[in-house]
């Protein structure tokens, strides 16, 4: 079904704009693999289908970005992959292991900052360390360094309500990074930030990904942001969410803000935008 949909959305892919072909001989032993994963919420008054069966693969060390209209099931997808929700059908494998419960080596940034109001910013950032029962002393310097990186130096002792929404969200990014997880999952992490800070954070995130080789799954509403950051962009359809297309972003790994004026960038942005402008799928 998804394969059919993919071919539907292909129109003579030019050199740099190609829809990723079905990688049949994919190894499930590494990366994140979804096969036939769907989700239907069983609410009191009937059932809500949130995700149509999805098949895709995220390679190790890949920057994978998901864009899609509001309510199409992006947050649901993230919860499924992180093991917090069980899929209605299908299987998810992370590094060859089937996901049945949260797997430890992951940092998550939710749509809301979700800082604990009774912990100061530093202790909030150290929360994964406490949960995993690791030594705090070892991680405090790293936590402070991360806070400095996102421009929150000097706010360590403040309580969350004393920070703006965007500052809280930046602190929650530090929290996801503090235990140096192999996989990062971020659900619209920059939604509450102004355009300038957002671009700065984008560059920073891009740098982190390059230098540490983390696998990053990022959800966003901003198409330019998606293309700027991604190795691959997954475009989702309206609810119930399915795969409209998956695009490679052949911009190279070293990216500065100049990349945004590259014709490859602008073409891809325009092309992804088309998915949302027209009601019918591209054909």
């Amino acid at each position: 079904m998804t394969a059919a949909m993919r071919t539907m959305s292909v129109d003579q892919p030019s050199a740099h704009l190609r829809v990723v072909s079905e990688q049949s001989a994919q190894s499930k032993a590494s990366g994140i693999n979804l096969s036939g994963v769907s989700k239907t919420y069983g609410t009191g008054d009937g059932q809500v289908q949130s995700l149509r069966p999805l098949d895709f693969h995220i390679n190790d060390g890949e920057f994978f970005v998901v864009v899609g209209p509001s309510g199409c099931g992006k947050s649901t997808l993230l919860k499924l992959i992180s093991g917090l929700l069980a899929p209605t059908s299908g299987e998810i494998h992370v590094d060859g292991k089937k996901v049945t419960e949260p797997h430890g080596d992951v940092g998550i940034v939710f749509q809301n900052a979700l800082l604990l109001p009774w912990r100061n910013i530093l202790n909030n950032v150290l929360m994964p360390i406490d949960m995993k029962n690791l030594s705090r002393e070892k991680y405090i310097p790293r936590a402070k360094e991360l806070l400095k990186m996102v421009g929150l130096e000097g706010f360590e002792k403040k309580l969350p309500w004393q920070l703006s929404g965007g500052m809280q969200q930046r602190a929650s990014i530090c929290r996801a990074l503090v235990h140096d997880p192999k996989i990062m999952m971020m659900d619209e992490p920059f939604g509450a930030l102004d355009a300038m800070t957002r671009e700065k954070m984008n560059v920073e995130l891009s740098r982190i990904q390059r230098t540490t080789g983390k696998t990053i799954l990022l959800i966003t509403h901003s198409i330019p942001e998606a293309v700027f950051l991604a190795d691959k962009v997954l475009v989702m359809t309206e609810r119930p969410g399915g795969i409209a297309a998956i695009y490679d972003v052949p911009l190279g790994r070293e990216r500065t803000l100049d990349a945004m004026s590259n014709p490859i960038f602008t073409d891809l942005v325009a092309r992804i935008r088309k998915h949302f402008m027209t009601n019918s799928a591209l054909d």
Partner: protein
Amino acid sequence: MSEKKAPGSVSKLLNASWLRPFLLLVMIVVGWDLAIRIFGIPAYQIPAPGDVVKVLYTDWPELLAQSWPTTYATLLGFLASAVFGIPIAMLIAGSRTVESYVYPLLVFSQSIPKVAIAPLFVVWFGFGIVPKIIAAFLLGFFPVVVSAVQGFKSVDPDMVDLARAMKGSRLRVFCAVNLPHALPAIFSGLKVSVTLAVVGAVVGEFVGSNSGIGYVLQRSIGTFDLPTMFAALVILALLGVILFWLVDRIERFAIPWHVSQRADVFIGS
């Protein structure tokens, strides 16, 4: 009451907010006294405030001695309602099954008038402190459970998910997220509970006791000694206020981060 907010006199303002309830109290007492004089209310119906103060002054050692048993019973009953109420609320909030079995029964048990069954405790446990503690416990228990259940249930599921995704054990997640989140609700339950526990202890003393403020109250009603009765009421009110204030202090210490404790909002006490 009509003090001006002179700049820089923060301490004065603080004093004023401390003073306000007392000012109101003084006004009520004056009104009480005036009403008795103007309408000529006889002393066997309502005593004059002066007479009550006189009793409070002359019988102070006796009244003080009698307030200790009431205080003990109140505190023990209150502690019992916290010690049993909070874990039960945890169970109710944590499991649908437990909730469906226990909660309706708990609500049902609340419609039984405690005053009516208090003599039963005397039959079972004699005239000691135990029936009083049980009565205080029974009155204080319910508000703790209701508030704590609400507190445990209102935790943001995303917050719990986040902690679960960090691979925290169940207990660790509970202590780091659910419990602190429920604390403000638990404390508001405890504040209601502590004032009701005073009532419970007095009910216990009413039905079968030869000590405590409740006993003084009952004895003075029997002999139409209205000034003593009113003095006992004043002491009970004081006891309630002091215990409430104590819980409020502990709350401020335990949850300084909560909205109700932020900045210089003046609450309670």
